[in-house]
């Protein structure tokens, strides 16, 4: 279970964090930035109730 479970914006159920993706952007600083890997880490979440998927910056 992740430290901060994400709530499904569609149905309110607790989502499952099933993936992470390193995204390279021109931005520096802020949540999710991983200086060692050189990008911003995005968490991928899926809702076990309605199937909706969402993402947010890690951190």
């Amino acid at each position, binding site marked *: 279970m992740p430290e901060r479970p994400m709530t499904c914006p569609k149905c309110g159920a607790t989502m499952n964090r*099933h*993936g992470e*993706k390193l*995204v390279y952007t021109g931005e520096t600083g802020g949540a999710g930035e991983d200086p060692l890997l050189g990008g911003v880490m*995005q968490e991928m979440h899926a809702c*076990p109730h309605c*199937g909706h998927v969402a*993402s947010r910056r890690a951190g």
Partner: protein
Amino acid sequence: MPDPRPLSIPVILGTARKGRRSAHAARFVLGELQKRDGVVTELVDVGALSVQLDDSGQDTADPAFSGCMNRADAIVLIVPEYNHAMPGLLKHVLDSCLKEYVHKAAGIVAVSAGPFGGTRVIETSLPVLRELGLVTIFWDVNVGSVAKVFEENGLLLDPALVRRTDKFLGELIWMAKTLRYGRESIAL
């Protein structure tokens, strides 16, 4: 216990070119998907989407497209081969989403006017789909010499396509079910 929610598997017609024969392949695959129990499908025509040409990348999608990709458990890409690669418009549309694709299944139906059946567009598309977080299957459908496979009115001339598409969709559906379970039940 079986999941009561049907799998959503849209078919993406990846070209807007006038006179596109890929539309015949798209309608054919759509029809084959509609015969499957437990699957809902729809045709997504990249030529009918509202596409931003002054921006690109994640979160620039047509809301209808991103909503469709969010609901999807798998996608079928109908991809004509243009100079060994996918049409630029399809790449632009695919690049407009990201989270919507991660850990979802993707299969390619490649279409070519010549005899090679779009084998080269499959090879050049795989790294793109992988980078988007899609999980590609190891079955493809190759529609070579498309003018001999479909009549101008879309009538199927090659019965072997039915068998090949059946195998392709069987694998895609298996992967879609597996990945839905993983996305929703297995934490990273």
